[in-house]
């Protein structure tokens, strides 16, 4: 504070502070004090420039300072006259500069001096705020939490009691929240935020389809779902397997005696070891033979949604941030931010790079986040990307790892579409393969996986956190108690995933069928003049419909989305829901379609396209 004082004096060529009487700034009436504290910051520069010692003298006033209570104050009949007009009480002069004379004038001058000095308006407003902040900090630091019973200031009925603020507040609250309970019940603020209807077009579209889903026979006029990345192309294979391998699944397998003991009772929360082994095997089949996964580095939970949330809980504190290349999966906003309080910082990718992540953009976003005072804890990306469907090259992955190492942050690679590849041009490389070579610090690398996409079993709720960091694994294991996988489902999956022949066949057939649907669908769009971004994986394509939008803006994009949904009766996901900065891009999932419905989809999109071109 000494330097602050010097600074203030320096700013004022004509320092005028005179020894101030105690009552000028801290009149004994607490309500008065509240008023000055909330209405006007004027006294504070002066207060500091006179003496810091006075601060501790006024320590007992903290409660009222900490929590001004508007309701209570407004009910006090004396308040109005006291502050709005020259006071009827002789002691405390009004804090209002206009009405103030003599002493009051001295209050204003220092501030004016600051304002007119070199610092100008900014300093003039910053300094009082900063001083106010430090005052609060000071008071907080030096206030020892006292048991209320032994309070040194017994509450007295006198209005000059420094505790009055507290008393008033308490009683005002209980008055408000009385028996009548007219006041709405308070939930937590985060609860209220979550309960709000989600206005992201992604969820609006999904809800709309739920109300009127297309069915070839029962509801041919319904909305066709292209907004949900699910895969029904290979259900026949799974059904056949089930028929051939009955019973196994539920009751423990190997013809063991029918028993519920290994199923109904408590099981390890982070997944049965047998399932981890089977899952590790499945993952290395999916991600290419070059990589092997260690079951002991694996934690299983009820879906990729809790997997990403748990990992976020482990890596970042409330208020920290992850970098995330756009466009990204709209669900991340909910899955990651809802409860963890972690922020997502978009790293914008552009169509000119085919939406490929570049380290330049990453670096820029990182520096901007740092400037905003955010602590960046990691980079989160999906590979193959959702919604674009492109794949990160080996070189890019190396660059990303270097970047993470340089900035000392984590890498989270979401690879849940790794098995749903249809491209031949690009080769998928898991980050697990890249770090096999010893040169990287593995403990900063984490992989998210799940069976919802690659084995098309979203209903079974199986997600994986695969990490090279022991501490993350230990914490994630403990966190899985909030979202474990049901044991019968695990048993079923153990036998299914352990059937190597079936799995090989499944992966192979699945890729072929996705490829076929991709060709059909993207070919159909092409005939309508709609081009898609180059992609190699995923259950969707990323279509450029900017030629159809009237306004090249988010508004124009959402208008087209609305037309597609309500007139064309197809639900697609607009780029803006994925935080894409270029308007006009849409994600269309095609793997839940039957082949014979593709012409219908094209017809519907075509109809809307015609409307747009003819200017309707």
């Amino acid at each position, binding site marked *: 504070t000494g330097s602050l004082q010097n600074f203030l004096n320096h700013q004022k060529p004509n320092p005028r502070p005179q020894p101030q009487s105690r009552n000028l700034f801290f009149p004994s009436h607490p309500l008065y004090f509240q008023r000055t504290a909330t209405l006007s910051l004027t006294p504070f520069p002066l207060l500091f420039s006179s003496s810091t010692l006075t601060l501790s003298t006024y320590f007992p006033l903290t409660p009222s300072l900490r929590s001004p209570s508007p309701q209570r104050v407004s009910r006090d009949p004396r308040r109005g006259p006291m502050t709005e007009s020259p006071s009827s009480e002789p002691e405390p002069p009004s804090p209002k500069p206009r009405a103030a004379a003599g002493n009051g004038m001295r209050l204003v001058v220092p501030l004016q001096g600051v304002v007119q000095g070199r610092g100008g308006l900014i300093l003039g407003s910053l300094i009082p705020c900063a001083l106010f902040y430090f005052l609060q900090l000071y008071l907080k630091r030096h206030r020892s939490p006292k048991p209320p019973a032994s309070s040194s200031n017994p509450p007295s009925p006198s209005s000059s009691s420094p505790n009055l603020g507290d008393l008033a507040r308490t009683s005002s609250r209980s008055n408000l929240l009385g028996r009548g309970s007219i006041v709405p019940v308070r939930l*937590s603020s*985060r609860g209220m935020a979550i309960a709000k209807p989600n206005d992201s077009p992604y969820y609006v579209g999904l809800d709309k389809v739920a109300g009127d889903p297309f069915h070839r026979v029962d509801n041919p006029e319904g909305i066709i779902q292209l907004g949900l990345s699910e895969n029904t192309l290979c259900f026949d294979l799974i059904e056949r397997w089930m028929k051939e391998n009955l019973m196994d699944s539920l009751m423990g397998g190997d013809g063991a005696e029918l028993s519920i003991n290994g199923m109904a009772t408590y099981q390890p929360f982070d997944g049965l070891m047998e399932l981890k082994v089977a899952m590790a095997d499945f993952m290395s089949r999916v991600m290419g033979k070059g990589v092997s996964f260690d079951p002991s580095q694996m934690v299983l939970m*009820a879906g990729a949604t809790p997997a990403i949330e748990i990992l976020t809980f482990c890596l970042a504190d409330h208020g920290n941030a992850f970098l995330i290349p756009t466009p990204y999966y709209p669900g991340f906003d909910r899955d990651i931010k809802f*409860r963890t309080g972690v922020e997502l910082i978009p790293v914008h990718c552009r169509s000119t790079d085919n939406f490929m992540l570049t380290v330049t953009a990453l670096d820029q976003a990182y520096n901007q986040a740092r400037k905003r005072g955010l602590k960046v804890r990691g980079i989160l990306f999906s590979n193959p990307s959702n919604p674009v469907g492109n794949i990160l090259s080996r070189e890019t992955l190396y660059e990303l790892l270097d970047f993470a190492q340089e900035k000392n942050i984590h890498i989270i690679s979401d690879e849940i579409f790794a098995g749903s590849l249809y491209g031949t041009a690009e080769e998928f490389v898991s980050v697990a393969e890249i770090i096999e070579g010893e040169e990287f610090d593995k403990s900063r690398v984490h992989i998210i996986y799940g069976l919802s996409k690659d084995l098309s079993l*979203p209903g079974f*709720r199986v997600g994986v956190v695969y990490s090279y960091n022991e501490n993350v694994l230990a914490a994630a294991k403990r*966190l899985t*108690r909030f979202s474990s996988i*049901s*044991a019968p489902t695990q048993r079923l999956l153990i036998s299914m995933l352990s059937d190597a022949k079936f799995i090989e066949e499944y992966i192979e057939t699945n890729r072929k069928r996705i490829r076929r649907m991709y060709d059909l669908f993207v070919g159909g769009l092409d005939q309508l003049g709609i081009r898609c971004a180059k992609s190699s994986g995923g259950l969707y394509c990323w279509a450029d419909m900017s030629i159809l939008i009237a306004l090249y803006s988010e508004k124009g994009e959402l208008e087209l989305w609305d037309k597609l949904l309500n007139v064309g009766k197809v639900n697609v996901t607009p780029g803006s829901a994925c935080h894409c900065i270029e308007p006009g891009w849409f994600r269309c999932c095609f793997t839940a379609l039957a082949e014979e419905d593709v012409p219908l989809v094209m017809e519907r999109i075509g109809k809307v396209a015609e409307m747009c071109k003819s200017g309707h």
Partner: protein
Amino acid sequence: MVFKLNNQLLSRMAIGDGHGENSSYFDGWKAYDSDPYHHQNNPDGVIQMGLAENQLCFDKVEEWLKKNPAASICTPEGVAGFKDVAIFQDYHGLPQFRNAVAKFMGKVRGDRVSFDPDRIVMAGGATGAHETVAFCLADPGEALLVPTPYYPGFDRDLRWRTGVQLVPIECDSANNFKLRMEDLEAAYEMAKLNNIRVKGLLLTNPSNPLGTILDGDTLRNIAAFTNENNIHLICDEIYSATVFGKPDYVSIAEIVDEDRKSGRNVLNLDLIHIVYSLSKDMGFPGLRVGIVYSYNDVVVSCARKMSSFGLVSAQTQHMIGSMLSDAEFVEEFLGANRARLAERHGAFTGGLGRVGIRCLRSSNAGLFVWMDLRRLLKEQSVEAETALWRVIINEVKLNVSPGSSFHCSEPGWFRVCFANMDDETMEVALGRIRAFVAKHKEAMKPARKLCAQSSLKLSFSGRIYDEFIMSPRSPIPQSPLVRART
């Protein structure tokens, strides 16, 4: 050169011990895990009596599964339903599942009340359900009142990720650990005086670890209290089907029903929430079915969105849906469950009584007894309790749970679970206790009259207060300006 990550780069949650598993309480589990009892392979091993599992009626469930192979969808009969189930990921849950659970919850309460399937929200076990409720109702730093002794997992489930605090209400043996209104009021006032924002009261009814139930009048008074103070009332009723003796169980749902039917409409239903699960009542902890049932529409919608973090596998939903829709099976199961629990409880407490060990008398529910070993303590202190507990684990080879882990204010009480084993194992356990008591005959003989220690009742726990103010996890204290809001 490789820069090694240090712990600093992980979240405070990852490196902190909010999970509570470092407490000595888990030593009992470790002892069991390293040397589990088996009647043939390891007859001298540790018997697990610390796990509240209900295995008494598995035969009934197995029988049903044999009769209804289609339910599991993994059989030739059930495979037709596979396609719909495999792809089902709506967080509302299968309609059949919700209907069946609502009906089951009504059945458990003697069909005196009915539950609305649209208010059934899924969560990952009761653990997940509790956390969801805490997320919905309280912000970091805010608090819930909990009567002691309470389930140790609450410290983790309700606090760890949510940042919510628990404020204990101390109950003691002088009145069989029953929650008294004056204690409740005192704890609430004390918390308020300490500037702790109390958002609700959490009741476990039937109580874990006591195995007692709250009578209707107390429940009515408590509901009136929370209503008057406009705080939430969360009732954890996961043991509701384990009530095996008189008096009859009264659920908060019945109090609500009563209030509505009588036309008084005093209770604000937005304040009442029930946590339920099938882990205890059906004995299915492995299926991870937790339920949040709230009368508050906003909480229902909020919890439902959060349930995507702990959805129950659709296959399991399908199976539970079919099983609990079978009214005949449910009826038979609940009856058998009560009868067998009563029988086991009688046999176990009788066995203990013959060697002079008493349990909490008023207990008529739960999968455990609240065993009174105060007379075996060298002195009435937590240290003595812990010492005795170590002897029980290491010498008697029983993993029981000491009262201190349940935040019990009086040393010398232990929770002993009896439903996770067969009759033979229980006899072995009783035999070991008999042998142990015989060695300590002197301590047991002079049945000194112990006066209840109730001096601490009003003292506010300083630890909780410190945590509330100073907790590094709380996002609030960084700026005193922010703290200044009312």
